[in-house]
């Protein structure tokens, strides 16, 4: 069955979401991944936006986390203070899995979504942290979406917007952050996890037809590929639900 890489990425992420998760969603495929999980295997998982919307009934795809579509049929319509407190508070925060994206990532899962070039005279300016830095600081588990390109998997970030494992195993603890950090990087080629001991990224699996060597060619730094497996392609029922129930208008896919 034909599928796009964007569909693959969405479904790979969806598979990581459990029934017991509160899913912090951004715009785009991150919310689509949560919608897919909810419709496929985790009906009880709770979608949650930094704008303060909890457990919205998404009859249509929101085009921003402040889209009025996230306000419909929610458990509560609060504000930013409520949303971030829910993540910073360990009682509820430990239930949250964050989904993030960025312009650059390093081997410890630190993210840049602020600038390319010098911070004080950037060649490219991006939107900035938004809630990204907050989520990355607070939640114990997160999934990162990336395009697999050499300029994006970098030796050194031009600006560290959101903390991953910082400089390694003790990075978060030394800085004063709570335990946890990124778990998973999902790209248009592969899926990476972080080694339990070194907190460095390693290749967990490649998409069908993509070799570990190809993956490495698209990164500035090398990662362990010894644990790589082939990731199963989307199943027909997954694709059907994603296409027909989650994004029938193809607004994101």
């Amino acid at each position: 069955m034909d599928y796009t890489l964007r569909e693959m990425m969405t479904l790979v992420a969806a598979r990581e979401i459990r029934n017991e998760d509160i899913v912090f969603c951004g715009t785009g495929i991150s919310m689509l991944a949560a919608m897919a999980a909810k419709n496929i295997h985790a009906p009880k998982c709770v979608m949650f936006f930094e704008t303060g919307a909890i457990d919205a009934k998404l009859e249509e795809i929101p085009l921003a986390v402040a889209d009025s579509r996230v306000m419909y049929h929610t458990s509560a319509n609060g504000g930013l203070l409520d949303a971030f407190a829910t993540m910073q508070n360990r009682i509820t925060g430990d239930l949250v899995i964050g989904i993030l994206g960025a312009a650059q990532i390093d081997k410890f899962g630190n993210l840049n979504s602020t600038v390319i070039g010098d911070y004080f005279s950037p060649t490219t300016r991006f939107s900035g942290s938004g809630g990204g830095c907050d989520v990355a600081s607070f939640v114990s588990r997160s999934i990162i979406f990336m395009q697999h390109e050499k300029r994006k998997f970098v030796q050194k970030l031009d600006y560290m917007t959101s903390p991953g494992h910082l400089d390694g195993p003790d990075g978060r603890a030394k800085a004063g952050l709570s335990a946890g950090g990124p778990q998973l990087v999902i790209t248009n080629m592969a899926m990476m996890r972080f080694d339990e001991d070194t907190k460095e990224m390693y290749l967990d699996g490649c998409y069908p037809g993509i070799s570990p060597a190809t993956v490495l060619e698209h990164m500035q730094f090398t990662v362990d590929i010894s644990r790589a497996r082939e990731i199963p392609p989307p199943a027909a029922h997954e694709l059907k639900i994603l296409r027909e129930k989650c994004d029938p208008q193809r607004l994101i896919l």
Partner: protein
Amino acid sequence: MKLANDKVTSLKKAVTSFVRNGCHLSIGGFTINRNPMAAVYEIIRQNITGLHLYVHSNGQGVDELIGAGCVAKIEIAYGGSGKFAATCIRFKKAVQEGTIQVEDYSNYQMTLRFLAGAMGVPFLPTRSSLGTDIIAKWGFPAAMRCAEEKLPDQKLIVMDNPFNGWSGADKVVLVPAITPDVTFIHVQKADRRGNCRMQGLTFADVEQAKAARHLVVTCEELVDDDALRKNSEQNQIPFIHVDAVVHIPYGAYPTACYNHYDYDPVYLKAYAIAAKNDRLFKAYLDSHILTLADQQGLLDLVGSERIERIKADPRTGYAADLDRR
């Protein structure tokens, strides 16, 4: 002023009274929802310059203010308009060309800074951003901070938890309070004295409102004096914080206003195209803002058919089945 019985005025007068060149301004809303766009357009029409802008995740409002040349400095967490502009286009351009100075915080930090202002405390603590460049890199250099009375000397401060690890925290980041000279927000309902009721998400509007020295509220509906006194736990902002009330239906257009109308995808897409090109953007400013008298002028220009299309469905609060591709 804050206790006056009738604060209803025109937008023109509200902007003239409270927005000066170089003043510290904050606007409510989030990306493409409930931005006080009518107020933004009036600020542009009045050719206010040198603004110091405070926002969290603002999109359309910020981008138009920057594009029109009103803004000198901005403290911000996120400049984006959802799918229509992942990064706000004129914001991006202005930063890259060095025509505005930016100080970056996270969304929660900006919200806490407004809350600190609203609470009357100099700072609030968070555990966000420890170890990142949000702490290490200051967009506004220390010398400038010390020279400007209206800026705190430090962007933020990392402090050891003085309660010996209480709550599991070894360190906290203290972020300084913001007290804007004036905040503009757009709400669904207000009465003449300024009591406000928002529907749907409130974002950080309440904190932005209560932190400000002056607060101008634009509203979809101006309601009878007693209307909001029933179920008043739904009123997020009591009149004691409000300086002026302006009745402007479609005051958030082209951004959305829950239960009233959706964002206008046609407008936002056309804007994104215009914003990418200086000549087109100048033409946009002329045709859609500068040569118009007010928000009604914009609605007339856009035409009733498009306005009809974005009207909110009463069940969901947005325009169901709107073509947003």
